[in-house]
């Protein structure tokens, strides 16, 4: 299949939008006003952008602690994201959850939760309900390479395959669980073999290549709806520390060569290169786009800082749904 020029530009803009928002969060974070752990998605934008391009607002997603990119790419409200980081009532969870708990019912971003593997069965349950309702949606489940080490991952894949549920499992393999590399955790064992052994269709994408991820997500969605669960597996890399706004390459837990390899594979650079080749990239237009995103973000921050936080009275009334 071919991706038209407009779509190519859209992809680049989405990648850039996420990158800029995350970079701005990293800058603001140092002011100590966002008082929750943040796991930034810088470097990992290609997967959520590529996958989200095939989803509608009605398709569901669940995700992980590193959830900003999933949320933004799904079309989640940026004001609510910022509100949550600042712990305000305007936040995705009214300030109760924090950065690791994204939620936007308008776009069916059902939930991000930080317990590794924690949202996987929930996405399976959503897939099961979709199947029972016979609605033509998919349930997308984002998880990292470390989640494949959890028991609940196998239980969930097993159930999804058994019931042939319309689910796209999306494994973003950034190779590190905090400071521990995949090799230390998996040895030479291949995630691909594990997933295939569960009778879940396995699709590996090119690294950080948004167009390839987009194309394969189309195949995945079709397969999920017609035949049942599929897993998109995509290697990628985070540029900053596991949690927080800084680069931590000085700690030397990741080989220099590896870092250089991935910097050369930056998803945005890759896309710009492609667009330049077919002569649809305009420096000036791109700069204007970047500036407008930055401006919007900054004005949202100013607005958020002036909003109120949830009252303790309201908070204390939330133990049970009434």
């Amino acid at each position, binding site marked *: 299949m071919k991706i038209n020029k407009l779509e190519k530009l859209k992809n680049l803009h989405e990648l850039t939008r996420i990158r800029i928002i995350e970079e701005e969060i990293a800058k603001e974070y140092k002011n100590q006003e966002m008082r929750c752990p943040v796991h930034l998605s810088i470097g990992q934008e290609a997967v959520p952008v590529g996958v989200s391009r095939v989803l509608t607002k009605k398709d569901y997603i669940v995700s992980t602690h590193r959830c900003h990119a999933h949320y933004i790419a799904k079309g989640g409200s940026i004001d609510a994201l910022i509100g949550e980081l600042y712990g305000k009532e305007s936040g995705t969870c009214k*300030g109760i959850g924090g950065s690791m708990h994204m939620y936007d019912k308008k776009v069916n971003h059902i*939930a991000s939760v930080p317990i590794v593997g924690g*949202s996987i069965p*929930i996405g399976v349950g959503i897939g099961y309900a979709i199947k029972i309702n016979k609605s033509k949606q998919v349930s997308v489940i984002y998880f990292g390479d470390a989640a494949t080490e959890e028991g*609940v991952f196998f239980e969930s894949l097993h159930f999804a395959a058994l019931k042939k549920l319309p689910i796209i499992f999306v494994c973003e393999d950034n190779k590190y669980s905090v400071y521990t590399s995949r090799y230390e955790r998996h040895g030479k064992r291949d995630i691909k073999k594990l997933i295939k052994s569960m009778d879940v269709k396995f699709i590996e994408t090119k690294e950080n290549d948004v167009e390839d991820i987009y194309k394969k997500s189309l195949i995945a969605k079709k397969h999920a709806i017609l035949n049942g669960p599929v897993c998109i597996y995509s290697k990628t890399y985070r540029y900053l520390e596991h949690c927080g706004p800084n680069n931590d390459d000085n700690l030397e837990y990741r080989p220099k060569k590896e870092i250089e390899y991935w910097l050369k594979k930056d998803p945005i650079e890759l896309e710009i290169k492609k667009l330049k080749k077919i002569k649809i990239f305009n420096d000036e237009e791109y700069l204007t786009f970047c500036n407008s995103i930055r401006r919007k973000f900054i004005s949202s921050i100013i607005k958020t800082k002036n909003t109120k936080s949830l009252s303790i009275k309201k908070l204390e009334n939330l133990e049970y749904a009434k």
Partner: protein
Amino acid sequence: MPNRKNSFIDAMSESLVQSMQKDKNVVILGEGVTDVKGIFNSTNAALKKFGHQRVIETPVSENALTGIQLGMSLLGKKPILMHARVDFSLLGFDQLINNASKWHYMFGGEMNVPMVIRLIIGRGWGQGPQHSQSLESVFSHFPGLKIVVPSTAKDCKGLMAASIFDKNPVVFIEHRWLHYYSSNFSKKFYKIDLNNSIDIKKRGKDLTILSSSIMLIESLKAAKILKKYDIDIEVLDLRVLRPLKLDKLYSSLKKTKKFIFVDNGWKTFGIGSEIFANILEKNIFLKNIPKRLACKDYPTPSSPHLNKGYYVTIKDICNEVCKCLSVKKNIKSKILNECEHIMSKVPHDLPDLNFKGPF
């Protein structure tokens, strides 16, 4: 077995069927829910009426199933997940505690999680350390969960219906031995309010016993014996542990000024500890030193030679009441003799003479 028309299991079965009839979103999940035994014959009627689409056999994956149930509930389903023994549900604790219990709260009150986990406590015939744990106090610790422990068939039916149609995750814990008891209940669909923790099962003036589940039944038996000797016990059924509402207990204690708590589980950090702390904080004056009767503070031994005396008996309850009320020696020995006589009719590790094992 009791009259099959009004047994605890009939009540459960009828509640499930009527709830499923009322709302097509109600579904049952679990290992064994469609097998020939149908979780002690409680899901067979539902399966017959609604088929495998709504009574769903599952793999043995407790943690994923709890999360799957949560996910289904977010799309409007009302799933009931069943484990034939409480102990297995511990494998689902990550999903239950980290997700389900706080889901509504954690996402700012935007989402509801209407789900029920039905658990059965085993006892006797060698159920042993891992098939007989009364873990109500553990579940009751977590904000956001509702914990229901019925004692009678009538309560079972109404409480299960209320649990199914509640907007929150409910842990419904029944005792296997309750299956051997009956009580009259309406054939119509009804719910019992989960915000009303305590039900007064027997009025009395001399002493208050608070208990739940099978120990509530034992307490009522003890009260019946004591009544013959003009000892008038008030027996309160703590049938909802969370949200915990103790107003009826306080009123009762203000009247009787004497209190015994009879627990189904262990004493240390048990339900009784929480009840006593509440009474202390309310500064209610008691004339006796309040007493907790509970299982021995170690895991259940399997062998019948080892587990005699492990559980609280009607004799233990009567003995404690006599102590609290300073009952005369000769009357006390008559009471305890009567208890022994009743207890001798059925071996201590059986719920009923008809029970022939294995679980």
